[in-house]
């Protein structure tokens, strides 16, 4: 590893939390890709998982619940040369932040979005998230969750993300590899990382989830949307790997094209702008 991305702040996470694995994978991915701390920005919302930017020696923004993506979009558009990575929880990204997820993907904004999916609201002490399976009892669903849980990868694909993958926090090396591909993708890359919450989903989560994990076969055609969707919403299985990887004009590319079309009208001096008012 060329650069050490570990900050000197101690994580507040519970012992055994899956987020430690995600953090370690991220250190590794950043290092192996030769990122520089001052050219990297990690943006998050609010949640246990959203505490992550504080633990990365880089520019970081632990923002508002659900609003990481718009903030990251602003950062990236302001300084396209920066590496902008968004991290956060499933509640943060799909509940309160669902609309920004949809539109950031639709725009194909040049961001890497890493979701730490624990099927629960961790920080607020265990309420149902949109990823919580139907029927599950949680703090907020005494009689069982009345709503259907979603698969974030399926949503990402239908929202228009151009790279979609799934990882498991228990597999630090594999997850780091997925992060590396996501970080190298042009456009909106979404990586869902199954990251167990031992406190509110039980100590057995790690074991149970690990048992479900399957590697996506090498022959899977990542450019085929229906094929990719087959690896979503699977019963009893969590397929890890790259589900989807296509090319589509990115927001940065489109805005650059607009800039050249606009500049073709001439770069106006103040007097030029004022002429419109005569």
């Amino acid at each position, binding site marked *: 590893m060329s650069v050490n991305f570990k*900050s000197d*702040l101690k994580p507040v996470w519970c012992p055994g939390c899956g987020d430690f694995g995600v953090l370690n994978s991220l250190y590794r991915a950043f290092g192996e890709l030769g990122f*520089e*701390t*001052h*050219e990297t*920005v*990690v*943006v998050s919302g*609010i949640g246990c998982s959203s*505490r992550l*930017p*504080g633990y*990365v*020696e*880089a*520019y*970081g*923004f*632990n*923002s*508002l619940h659900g*609003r990481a*993506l*718009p*903030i*990251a*979009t*602003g*950062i*990236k*558009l*302001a*300084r396209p*040369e*920066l590496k902008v990575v968004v991290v956060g929880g499933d509640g943060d990204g799909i509940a309160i932040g669902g*609309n*920004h997820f*949809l*539109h950031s993907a639709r725009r194909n904004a040049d961001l890497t979005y890493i979701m730490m999916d624990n099927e629960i609201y961790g920080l607020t002490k265990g309420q149902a998230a949109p990823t919580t399976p139907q029927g599950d009892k949680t703090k907020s669903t005494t009689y069982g969750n009345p709503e259907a849980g979603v698969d974030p990868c399926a949503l990402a694909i239908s929202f228009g993300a151009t790279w979609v993958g799934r990882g498991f926090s228990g597999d630090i090396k594999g997850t780091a590899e997925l992060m590396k591909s996501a970080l190298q993708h042009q456009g909106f890359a979404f990586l869902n990382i199954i990251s167990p919450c031992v406190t509110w989903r039980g100590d057995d989560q790690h074991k149970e989830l690990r048992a479900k994990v399957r590697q996506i076969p090498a022959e899977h055609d990542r450019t085929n949307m229906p094929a990719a969707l087959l690896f979503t919403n699977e019963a009893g299985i969590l397929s890890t790997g790259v589900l989807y990887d296509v090319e589509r004009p990115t927001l940065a590319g489109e*805005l650059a094209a*607009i*800039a050249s*079309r*606009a*500049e073709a*009208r*001439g*770069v*106006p001096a*103040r007097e030029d*702008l*004022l002429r419109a*008012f*005569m």
Partner: protein
Amino acid sequence: MSHELSLSIVGAGGDGAVAAGDILSLAVARDGLSVIKTEAYGPQIRGGESSCTVRISTLPIRAQADAVDALVVFSWADFARFRAEIELAADTVIFHDEKDAPPEEMKAYRLVPIAFAAQRASKNIFALGILAATFGLPAEQIRKSVRARFAKKTEAVIEANVTAFELGMTLGLDDAKKLDYVPSEPKLLMSGNEASALGAVEAGCRFFAGYPITPSSEILHYLGEWLPRIGGTCLQTEDELAAIGAVVGASFAGKKSLTATSGPGLSLMSEMIGLSAMAEVPSVIVNVQRGGPSTGIPTKSEQSDLWHSLYGSHGDTPRAVLACTDVEDSFHTTVDGFNIAEEFQLPVIVLSEQSIAQRRETVEAKNLTHGVVERRIATEFESYRRYEVTDDGVSPMSIPGQKGGEYQTNGLEHDERGRPSSMYTTHETMNAKRWRKLDAIAKTYGHLFTRLGPDRPDLGILCWGSSLGVVREAVDRLTARGIRVAAFAPRILMPLPAEAMQRFIDESKELLVLELSFAAQFYKYLRSELDLPKNRTRVFARSGGKNLTVSEVIEQVMRVPEEVLV
């Protein structure tokens, strides 16, 4: 002969009432006259009735006239909708379609029947001809404007309109007072929204994110066109939450950034305003006020977003609030907004009003310059602390890309390094740091107010925003009548120019607070911040939805007990 003229044109969708007003306004502005042009529409989305009022003067003006000198009515049915909004004088001349029988009550006025219908699509330009001849308006400039307006149409269309204009010119009345002026340096004609957008460009804004909303959308349109031409970026977001989020992000990354919205959007931005204050990331919001609460009256003006601007967002959230008083001032206030946001690293709300934002008004090009202040960027990275506690509360900011400046910010309470802390002592220290910035702003920007009229007035008017233009004219007229009335309008509302304002209050015998908010938001705010003696203060606070007029102000002033207005 007269030094000013006010006229309204009222018609149905296809009648081109507004187009005629535009053409006329541009024409007289080119002759150096002052103009204010406003429009009004019926409820129909398009093709419904519309009215356009143009006031022309040889003197600077910042308000509509009390009553119009002339009125063009293509159809009485359409006029009915605007009857309450268009004030007529005893001697108002009304040009109306000869085939359309006037309502009974209109017969009190001087009615001039005209064969408008026969002129079909050109009837608006035809009407301009009549008006030009009647009031001595600059025919050549109008012809030029007509040609420019139809430049993209066929030659036949252009000719038809020019012909209509010439025909109208032959029908002018002889006995009306003609406008008496010598052409001077051409003026620009622009709206408050355009002036705000220009101000943003002047200030160095290179990032805009916004979501359309009446009456602020034009700022999105203009900056969407201009920014990409000057190396900037414009993003239309999915909603206002994202708009202000993208602004905070771009600003964190070092770009001067703006969003524009109106009440409902401002309400949605409440939470992010708190983040901007807490993470100390500059952000500028131009909020163009309309009738509220809720969706309210999107197309009409009001001054009722003041409370939300001052106090919206949970927690002790420092922010600055400025107010535009007219179109030209929208330019300056927007630059000031950026200067304050950048220098003090906090959210700034620039309040405009529909009546300023969407009216078109003459502006002198030479006035459109304004000093620009830059952000305090970190240069020393030895043991760099992003939120270092300083005297004025401002800590040098590092920008992503700067080596050694890495920090992690957040909306949680944090220490000088930006690290989350739930300790009371940190919280108190950091609250104090953040709020000290307001003291510093008050010092640097305490001059942002307008004071009119004599010292030690018998009556001191306290007002803000667009009311200033109206009050200015009222003060002039009252002064001419020998009444010692003065006015004070803060152009920075948070923090208030408290010292100057208190002095004004103390030196005024009686006070009149004047605002377009039913709940008297301005008055209540002044009471909370200043010593506003109850026994000497009267309040005139009414709903928006109709512009404040000079005569309304004069009427309020004259209600002050006579022994005061000696």
